[in-house]
């Protein structure tokens, strides 16, 4: 609880008025709710003692109506204020979450995976907004009700109150014992359903296989068995869960029995207790036991929400590792890139991801980077993109260290085509348009032609306006790659990086793209990371990476003469050609 007030200090301070108002309304509401019981008791006594008169009846009627209205209005206003706080907090948290996310570097995303982040943004934010507003006030409500109802009872008769209330703590006991059992059981149920879910997913994804192997009946039986198990487990859980309410009711029953028994004793012995009092007392007793029942739940729930708070704060409070210095300037064009003894390793790793990298690339040149998977090719690139910090050595752009320039402006001068293609749920056109920059000179149609995507357009039923991504059609691997290339070409930046982006296109397409790059991007610096050596054959310099180090470098001809890894790979990839000849 303290945590809530600490973490959301900024929110509470900003909305202090609403918080205060809700507190006041709760007190008014709770007090008013206990009034009708008093009126009822009074009127019953007056009838019993024949002291009633017409005026009193009218008075009671008006009083009840007015109280009813007060309850309605204060309750509604309270609900409205609480709800508006919830929604506002939710909005703030979701917004801040995203903006924080956008500021982070690659290491943040290595720590917390996308799936986890999404769950935090949705589920945990939801929990936190609800708990910090709705639940907190519900708890206050409960406590208020306990205080006011018990005060009323004590005002009627202290001893009776103490006697009647005695059995009630058993409720806590019940909650403490039953609750964990029920949660555990419930988890078992959900686990089995999750398991079933996975099995069904396998069957659906593997439908072709199941059909192909004529295994339909077996598959069905497997799923039926799993579902039946889920049913059996859930049935057990229901037996347990349903005990909750009845056990609570038995305790309140005992409590009420004591109240009536001792209350009657008081009446019979003329101990300043009337029939009306007895009825009012019973109603107050009900108003006391219900909140007691909820109290346990509410406190537990709020306590458990601490986890959600932590998970959100981890993101909201995260600071990017690579920060722009105060003196950082805008980068106006890249003429030369130099890596001087650049090394990088993760703090938790033993080995370096890249070690002692020395490179120079000038405007208009092409650099080819090849090597086995995991040799450090991507890490090298990401240093330039300022997604990973440099552990030692430095990268110089136009003879100045890279951290002299603002992170964002460095990126503005580079167009990146990734290995795993990310298209957003919008039209093809909008996806390509993400590449628009101040330097754009080519039109959308032109870059689409250059990326060899033109031939795909007739296959898309709305052409450029076809929706892709989650909500639209699924493009093939090759199509996605070509779109990514078009997007990068649109940027018309000084540097264009193709990070293994030609793997899914066939040989002809690859040749077309490379040719277009050569023709239209001759003034740009091109960095090409590839598996297929034909993609980098014409580069000005090719480096071969292995275990984070550059093990071979040179032009294609030089590397072929070297007769090392490059040479062997080239032959393997070309093997059939010799054979055919």
């Amino acid at each position, binding site marked *: 609880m303290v945590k809530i007030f600490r973490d959301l200090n900024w929110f509470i301070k900003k909305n202090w008025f609403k918080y205060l108002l809700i507190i006041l309304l709760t007190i008014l509401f709770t007090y008013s709710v206990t009034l009708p019981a008093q009126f009822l008791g009074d009127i019953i006594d007056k009838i019993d003692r024949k002291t009633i008169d017409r005026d009193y009846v009218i008075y009671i009627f008006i009083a009840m109506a007015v109280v009813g209205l007060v309850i309605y209005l204060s309750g509604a206003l309270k609900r409205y204020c609480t709800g508006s706080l919830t929604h506002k907090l939710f909005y703030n948290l979701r917004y801040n979450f995203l903006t924080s996310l956008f500021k982070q570097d690659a290491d943040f995303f290595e720590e917390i995976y996308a799936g986890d982040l999404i769950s935090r943004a949705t589920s945990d934010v939801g929990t936190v907004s609800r708990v910090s507003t709705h639940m907190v006030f519900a708890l206050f409500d409960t406590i208020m009700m306990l205080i006011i109802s018990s005060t009323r009872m004590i005002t009627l008769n202290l001893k009776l109150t103490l006697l009647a209330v005695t059995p009630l703590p058993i409720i806590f006991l019940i909650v403490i014992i039953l609750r964990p059992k029920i949660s555990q059981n419930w988890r078992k149920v959900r686990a089995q359903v999750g398991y079933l879910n996975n099995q069904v997913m396998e069957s659906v994804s593997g439908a072709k296989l199941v059909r192909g192997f004529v295994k339909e009946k077996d598959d069905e039986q497997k799923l039926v068995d799993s579902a039946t198990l889920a049913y059996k487990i859930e049935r057990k859980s229901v037996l347990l869960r349903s005990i909750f309410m009845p056990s609570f009711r038995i305790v309140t029953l005992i409590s009420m029995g004591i109240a009536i028994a001792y209350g009657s004793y008081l009446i019979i012995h003329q101990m300043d207790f009337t029939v009306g009092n007895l009825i009012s007392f019973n109603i107050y007793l009900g108003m006391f036991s219900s909140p007691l029942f909820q109290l346990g739940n509410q406190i537990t729930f709020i306590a458990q929400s601490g986890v959600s708070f932590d998970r959100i704060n981890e993101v909201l409070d995260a600071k990017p590792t690579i920060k722009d210095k105060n003196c950082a300037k805008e980068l106006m064009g890249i003429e030369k890139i130099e890596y001087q003894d650049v090394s990088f390793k993760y703090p938790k790793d033993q080995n370096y991801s890249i070690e002692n990298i020395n490179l120079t690339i000038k405007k208009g040149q092409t650099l080819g980077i090849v090597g086995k998977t995991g040799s450090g090719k991507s890490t090298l690139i990401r240093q330039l993109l300022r997604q990973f910090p440099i552990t030692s050595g430095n990268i110089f752009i136009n003879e100045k260290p890279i951290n002299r320039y603002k992170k964002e402006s460095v990126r503005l001068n580079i167009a990146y085509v990734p290995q795993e293609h990310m298209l957003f749920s919008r039209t093809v056109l909008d996806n390509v348009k993400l590449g628009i920059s101040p330097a754009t000179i080519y039109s959308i149609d032109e870059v689409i032609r250059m990326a060899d995507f033109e031939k795909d357009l007739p296959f898309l039923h709305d052409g450029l306006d076809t929706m892709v991504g989650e909500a639209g059609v699924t493009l093939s691997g090759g199509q996605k790659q070509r779109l990514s290339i078009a997007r990068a070409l649109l940027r018309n930046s000084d540097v264009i990086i193709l990070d293994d982006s030609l793997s899914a296109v066939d040989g002809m397409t690859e040749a077309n793209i490379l040719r277009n790059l050569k023709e239209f991007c001759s003034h740009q610096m091109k960095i090409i990371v590839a598996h297929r050596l034909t993609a980098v054959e014409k580069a000005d310099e090719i480096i071969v990476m292995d275990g984070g180090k550059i093990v071979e470098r040179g032009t294609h001809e030089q590397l072929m003469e070297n007769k090392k890894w490059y040479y062997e790979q080239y032959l393997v990839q070309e093997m*059939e050609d010799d054979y055919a000849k």
Partner: protein
Amino acid sequence: MRNNKEKLPLKYSTRTILKRVFKYALKSTSILAVSIVFLIIFSVLEIFQPLIIKKIIDDELSGVQAVWVETTANEETITYGGKFYQKDDGTLIGDRYTLRYFEAEGKGKYLFVFASLAEKDKLIRYEGNQIIVQKEDNTEEKYEYSSLSPNDMLSFYGNSSEKIGYWLMIYAIVAIIILVSRYIETVSFTSASMKLTLDMRKSAFEKVNRLPISYFAREPHGKTVTKMIYDSEGVRGLYEVIFSIFSAVVSLVTVYFGLFTLEPKLAWLTFIAFPLLYVWLTVYRKAINKLNQFIREMNSRINGKMAEFTNGVSIIQLFNQEKNMTEEYDEMLTNNYKTKMKHLRINTLFGYDLLILIRRMLVAFVLLYFGLKYFSPEAAVIGTTIYVYIQYLERLVNPITEIFSNLNSLEDSLVSASRIFEFLDEEEDTGLGEVTDLKLTGEIEFRNVTFKYVEGKNVLENVTFKTKPGQFIGLVGHTGSGKTTLMSLLERYYDLKEGQILVDGIDYLTYSKQDIRNNIGIILQDVSIFEGTIKSNVAFGLEVSDEEIEDILLQIGAHKFVNGFSKGIHTEVSFMGDNLSTGEKQLIAFARILLRNPSIIILDEATANIDTETELMIQKSLMVLSKNRTTFVVAHRLSTIRNADMIYVLEDGKIVENGNHEQLYRKKGKYRAMYEAQYNK
């Protein structure tokens, strides 16, 4: 940007849905019957509870203020001032006295008046040692009286304490019966609704393997799985709504029985509330439901965007799109906020709180009614009647709020139900047939096969070729040239409309689908792996020994499965084969085929980037597999089909070149061009 309006198609009317759900309900009639019986039991008993309290108060507590008759001692009499008195029941003979509470100048006490007073007679004031009483006709009378001390009162209460104890016991027993009944009712009802889910899932599982492959190509897999697993849970809501309506009706009937028995006139008056409630329910519900739906859709869109942005953070940063994307997101969030506030306003003013207000007004009205009735010349009003009446009113309103809150989830349940029924009504695959002992030799012929998936371009046009049994056939061509479709047709995943396919000289439509498939071993681009072990994945349902599996794996060169892993072929495989590499999955796929020994094999080569080592391993395995089997390979890497007996080059659905590698290479046509492009000479 996509338009915000997304309509949820509800193809089925509520009535149809309810009817079909009812059919499922019939499978659990006995459990539901138990539920209903106990529901009625506790609903009836609950009416008696307040009456017991009323009895305690009326007879034993308030009841002391009555007309007492002086008689001879017996079990019913109490002793006061040396004499014996018994409560007048109208039949006794003797002097009559009245015990009454009287309050004058703020001081109240119990008096024993030496007369038989009527209910309406009012004690006015003291006059000496007598008390002035105002009669119904407004005349005044004087009577003698004696004051009663607390001890005296104790005598008059007599054995009330015992009686109260007795009634409390009754109350407790009734309460326990109610609790037990409620428990049984809840458990049996919930069991029935869980059974509904199970039955629906069974129907879905039975259906899914009868759907045509085109369904799986069309519908995202995740959506299908959600329908089968989660929508079948969502349908329970329907049960809950119907049942709560039913129990509400039972409650209403029993409560009204009580209300009418106590005070008929007032009971009739409460009927005024019903049309009001109905109007409120309909209007409010309609407005709120629309908003609810809208908010739900918005939420899913916002979450989708969040997921998209999270997955694409890198690209967003690298393309400096942070600001733009944030603005997009903000717009959605703001709209969402505004809509939620609208919902809040409606809910607050016209929601549950309003219902409670109506109830409180009813209670106020009840007090007014009984209060005024007291002054009317009719029968006496007893205070406890008000109490019981109010308790009943509460029981009146509660079921209504129950229905009301259940109706909120009704919409959701209806959507779930229609999604499932839509699924269950999907067109099924035809011509599945049964598996026989049919063994094909593997002679395949395509004659003028033309095919398209949807209206538009033909994916295959006039494809004609013939293969001999045991040949190794390669199919190459660009994306969209039709190669995969050709194989899908052979496997009868789709139905042929134009042209013919002959297997072993006979039109393949004469065979059942299952027979054809039983004779073809397929290896798809994405290998389907299931949770289990390596052995279970290779065996895929066949009963085989460990040795047989190991032998097969060694044959195709997958030594590391046998020797490399610590548990060998019993190594665990996780869902969808997540713990295996692409190459390893392919090997398992190959082993599956080899185990089943079909006469025809189709391999749809994976386009995923695999390293050269794996590529070579797969090619070697393929050689083993294709010995003496008609093998079709849809190739992306020309090296895979280098040794093919026959290669068909497809372009735009037509076969444009054919021959073996050497022939095609020398032809210097499309094949040659593709080759050179791939190896860049």
